């Protein structure tokens, strides 16, 4: 590893440590978005950048590049970042799933021509969605403060460590040539944004205050993922709570 990569890794490990420690002191009060003022500033900057630059590029990319090619690009980046999924399978004790996911990477990298084609799903090795935030959630860590990260968008102290693990477990992280990393990174970002066009269209149509809307949707979707699509009854029951005048949650 060269010095630049070592520095990057040290910074990411430090970030990860902050995230893990924060999980230990997470409580309901923290989850109430204490950083809202700062978050809204970053939200507005991200939104402005998105509206003026990123979304128009993603829209053009979506219009010009055929769907099959876009799927290939999505498959490639999913496959190249899949070691992070396998690590988190193991950390959550899902050993069978870790073995299946290892077979998935092997199949997609070889038969799937470097990951461009998803050969594994039809062969009985479906894609799983695991990350370090979900692992920390499964281990019992609270969400911690809600964060809006510059350029990255919605996040939380519990989810932030995944920035580190997903980076260091991605082989593209170790490519030092800017001539490769810049265009590949740009393609990844544009393709990712293109995949979110429909979701953001729905948000823009429905939301009165897009910041609150996005925060709530992000938090709930994260719980859904932590529980692998089957969140417990209590999470649903929260809808039947109302903040009383004293701020205490009460059932009605």
């Amino acid at each position: 590893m060269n010095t630049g990569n070592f520095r990057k890794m040290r910074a990411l490990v430090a970030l990860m440590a902050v995230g893990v420690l924060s999980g230990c002191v997470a409580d309901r009060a923290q989850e109430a978005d204490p950083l809202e003022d700062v978050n809204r500033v970053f939200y507005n900057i991200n939104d402005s950048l998105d509206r003026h630059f990123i979304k128009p590029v993603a829209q053009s990319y979506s219009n010009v590049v055929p769907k099959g090619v876009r799927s290939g690009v999505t498959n490639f980046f999913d496959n190249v970042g899949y070691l992070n999924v396998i690590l988190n399978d193991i950390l959550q004790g899902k050993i069978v799933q870790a073995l299946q996911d290892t077979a998935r990477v092997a199949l997609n990298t070889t038969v799937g021509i470097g990951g461009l084609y998803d050969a594994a799903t039809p062969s009985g090795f479906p894609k799983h969605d695991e990350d370090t935030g979900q692992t920390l959630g499964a281990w019992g860590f609270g969400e911690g403060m809600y964060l809006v990260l510059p350029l990255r968008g919605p996040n939380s102290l519990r989810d932030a460590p995944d920035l580190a693990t997903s980076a260091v477990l991605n082989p593209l992280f170790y490519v030092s040539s800017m001539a490769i990393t810049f265009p590949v990174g740009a393609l990844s970002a544009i393709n990712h944004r293109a995949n979110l066009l429909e979701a953001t269209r729905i948000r823009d149509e429905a939301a009165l205050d897009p910041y609150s809307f996005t925060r709530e949707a992000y938090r709930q979707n994260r719980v859904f993922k932590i529980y692998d699509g089957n969140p417990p009854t209590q999470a649903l029951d929260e809808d039947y709570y109302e903040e009383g005048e004293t701020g205490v949650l009460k059932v009605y």
Partner: protein
Amino acid sequence: MNVGFRALAVCLMLFLPLRPGIAAEVGPGQVVDRLHLALLDVMKRAGELGYQGRSALLTPVVESSFDFPTIARIVMGRHWAGLGNEEQQAFLKTFSRLSTATYAARFDSYGGEDFRLVAEEPQKDKILVRSELVKADGSVVKFDYLVHPGKDGGWLIVNVIADGVSDLSVKRADYTTILKNEGYAALIAKLNDKIAQYEEPGR
């Protein structure tokens, strides 16, 4: 089976739903199923119907499937109690119109999707109806409906949870922020703006 028995069976099948009392006993899964069938119908005929046609078909189904008074109370959070009766009724009416407009605007094309009911799970006095929207490429979006007994009998939907995201919670976070920062009048104005956007020609 002899002809007479078969005729009797057919008669029973035909007339049972017409008997008062039995017709009203539409279970929680059927409420969701009826909504899904209406949505599929407008999706398949989206172009021919246009926005107004979709809205006309969906309005009676949506209004008889959702418990809007309960939903309105929950999405307004603690602000509900502070509103006068007229304000509550005005919000309820606007919210109900927006819900129908949203369905009519969003379900505007058909790409081979299908809905399927997966399970009905009791949750205290409510039933969680689990369903899936299966897209043409095989990908699935989970739609869970929380259904509870309505005041006048029958079952009514109080929440839709799409891939874990609760519509009630998102709306409550969204609306109460506007109420807190800008007030009731601004909330109603913004909801009416949304309805107007959905009703724009070309939808």
